[in-house]
C-alpha cells in the first residue's frame, strides 16, 4: 500500500482579476461608483493536481509567467486557492522571495529573530542557531550592521541561511541555487543534500535543467497554469528545454503577482 502523501493538491485553481483601472482609495471608489470598470481575469492556475510524497524531491519547472510562484504560495497557504483542495499533512518551510523584505533599521541579529520567528523557530532555537546562521551566510563580521547597509546579495544570503535553519518536514524552495557567490551556492547545495539525506521532503523550483536533473527524482512541468507533464526529472528537463526553444507565445502570467 503506498504511503499517504504529505501534500495533496487536487484541482487547485487560482485567478487574479486585473481591472483596466485600479482603484486603491476610498475616494476613487466613491467618485467612480457608477463608472463601469472593465476587468480581465487572469487564470494563473487551472485545475492543478499532484502529490508530494514523504521523502521525495520533486522538481517544478515552467516558463516565466507559468504560475510556479503562485502555486508555491498557494501550497504554503500564503494565498488562498479559488478552487480545489490542498491537504497538508506536515509542516512546510517555504523559501520564497527571501532576497527582499527586511527591516532596514534593525541589525542582522534582530532581523534573524524576526524572520526566524515568522518561519516557525522558537526564541530558544534562534538563540542557539544565530551564530550558525551568520556563519552559513558568511556574515559574522556584519552581525551588528543594520540591514540598510547590506548589499542585496548579503541580504539574500542571510535570508536563505535563516530559512535553511528553520526547516520543518517539507521544504519548498524557489530558485535557491541562483543566489550568492560560488562558495555560498556550494554551501546551499550541501545543505540541500543533507536535508535530502535526513529524509526531508523537498519541492524545488528551478529554471536550470541540470539542477532539476541533479537533485530531483520526479518533476512537474507547469505551462499556462496547468501541469502538462509529470514524469522523471530528466524527461521533464528535456521537455522544458524544448518548450523554450520551440515554444509559442508567453505563458499565462502568474508570476510576479504579489
Amino acid at each position: 500500500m503506498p504511503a499517504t502523501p504529505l501534500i495533496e493538491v487536487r484541482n487547485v485553481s487560482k485567478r487574479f482579476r486585473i481591472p483596466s483601472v485600479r482603484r486603491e482609495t476610498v475616494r476613487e471608489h466613491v467618485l467612480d461608483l457608477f463608472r463601469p470598470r472593465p476587468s480581465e481575469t487572469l487564470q494563473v492556475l487551472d485545475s492543478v493536481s499532484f502529490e508530494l510524497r514523504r521523502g521525495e524531491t520533486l522538481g517544478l519547472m515552467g516558463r516565466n509567467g507559468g504560475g510556479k510562484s503562485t502555486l508555491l504560495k498557494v501550497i504554503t497557504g500564503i494565498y488562498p486557492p479559488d478552487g480545489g483542495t490542498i491537504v497538508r499533512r506536515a509542516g512546510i518551510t517555504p523559501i520564497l522571495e527571501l532576497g527582499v523584505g527586511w527591516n532596514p533599521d534593525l541589525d542582522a541579529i534582530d532581523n534573524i529573530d524576526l524572520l526566524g520567528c515568522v518561519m516557525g523557530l522558537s526564541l530558544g532555537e534562534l538563540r542557539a542557531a544565530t551564530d550558525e546562521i551568520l556563519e552559513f551566510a558568511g556574515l559574522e563580521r556584519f552581525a551588528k550592521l543594520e540591514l540598510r547597509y547590506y548589499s542585496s546579495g548579503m541580504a539574500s544570503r542571510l535570508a536563505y541561511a535563516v530559512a535553511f535553519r528553520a526547516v520543518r518536514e517539507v521544504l519548498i524552495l524557489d530558485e535557491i541555487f541562483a543566489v550568492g557567490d560560488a562558495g555560498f551556492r556550494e554551501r546551499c547545495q550541501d545543505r540541500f543534500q543533507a536535508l535530502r539525506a535526513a529524509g526531508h521532503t523537498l519541492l524545488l523550483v528551478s529554471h536550470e535543467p541540470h539542477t532539476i536533473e541533479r537533485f530531483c527524482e520526479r518533476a512537474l512541468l507547469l505551462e499556462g497554469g496547468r501541469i502538462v507533464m509529470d514524469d522523471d526529472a530528466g524527461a521533464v528537463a528535456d521537455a522544458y528545454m524544448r518548450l523554450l526553444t520551440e515554444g509559442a507565445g508567453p505563458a499565462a502570467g502568474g508570476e510576479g503577482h504579489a
Partner: protein
Amino acid sequence: MPEIARTDESPRATGTAAPARRVEREGAHLAGLIWTLVRTDFKTRYHGTIGGFLWALLKPVTMFFVLYAVFSFVFASNPAYKLNLIIGLFLYEFFGEATKTGLLSLRAKGFLLTKARFPRWVLVVTSSSNAVITLALFSAAFVFVLLVQGHALRPATVALYAWYQVQYLGIVTGFSLAASVLFMRFRDLNQIWEVVIHAGFFVAPIIYPLDILPERLHIYLYLWPPTPVMMFSRAVLVDGAIPSLAAHVYLAAETLVIVGVGMLVYRLASARIAEYV
C-alpha cells in the same frame, strides 16, 4: 462553483508529534513571535534618538511633568480641571497613536506576509505595544503624583482605572484588526482616519467639561470610544467616585461590539491580504 477547501492536518509539528507537544511548541512559537515583534518595534522606533531606550522611557514621564507644571501655573485656581485635562490629553494621545499604528500595521510589515504562513493577527495586536508602554508609564507617574498630593486613592479605584485601560486597549485592537485589513485595499484610509482623529479631539471632552453641553447630547459623545474611558478614568482617579453599574456595562458592551466587529472584518478580509502586498 468549484470546491474550495484547505485541509491542514499538521501545520506546524511533524506528523507523529503528540498533540500536547504540538500545542506546547506552537505556544512557544507564538510567544516568541509576539515578544520579537514588540522588542523590534520598540528598538526601531527609538533608534537614533538621543538617549535611545532611556529617552523612550523618560519621554512620557517628562511630558507628564512638563504639562503638570504648566497647567499648575495656568489653572492654579482649578486643580481638578488641570488633572482632568492631563488625563484627557494622554488618553487621547494613546488612542490616536495606537489606532494609527494599528491601521498601518499589516502594510508596514507586508514584507513578512509573503514569506511564510503564520498568525498574521499578531502583527496587528502587537502594533500598539509602544503606545501601551507610554500609557503605562504615564499612568504610573499620574498615580504617583496623586499619592504625593494626598489624594485618597483606594486599591479598588486604581484597579478600576487599570480595567478601563484594558478595555481601551481592546477597543484599539478591535479597530486595528478591521482597519489594517481594509487599509491593504484602500490606501487613503490613514488620511481619512487622521482627519477623524483630529475632529474626535473636540468630540471627546478633553479641553471642556462635559457638563457645559446639554445632557441630551451626552449619549452621542459617549459613542466616541475615548469619551467613556476618559470620563470613568477621571471619576475614579481624580474624583474618587466609582461610576454606576450601567456605565460599566455600557463600556464593556462598547468594547465587545468593537472587538467583535473588528474580528469579523478581519476574518472576512484577511485571507487575501498577501495578494495586496
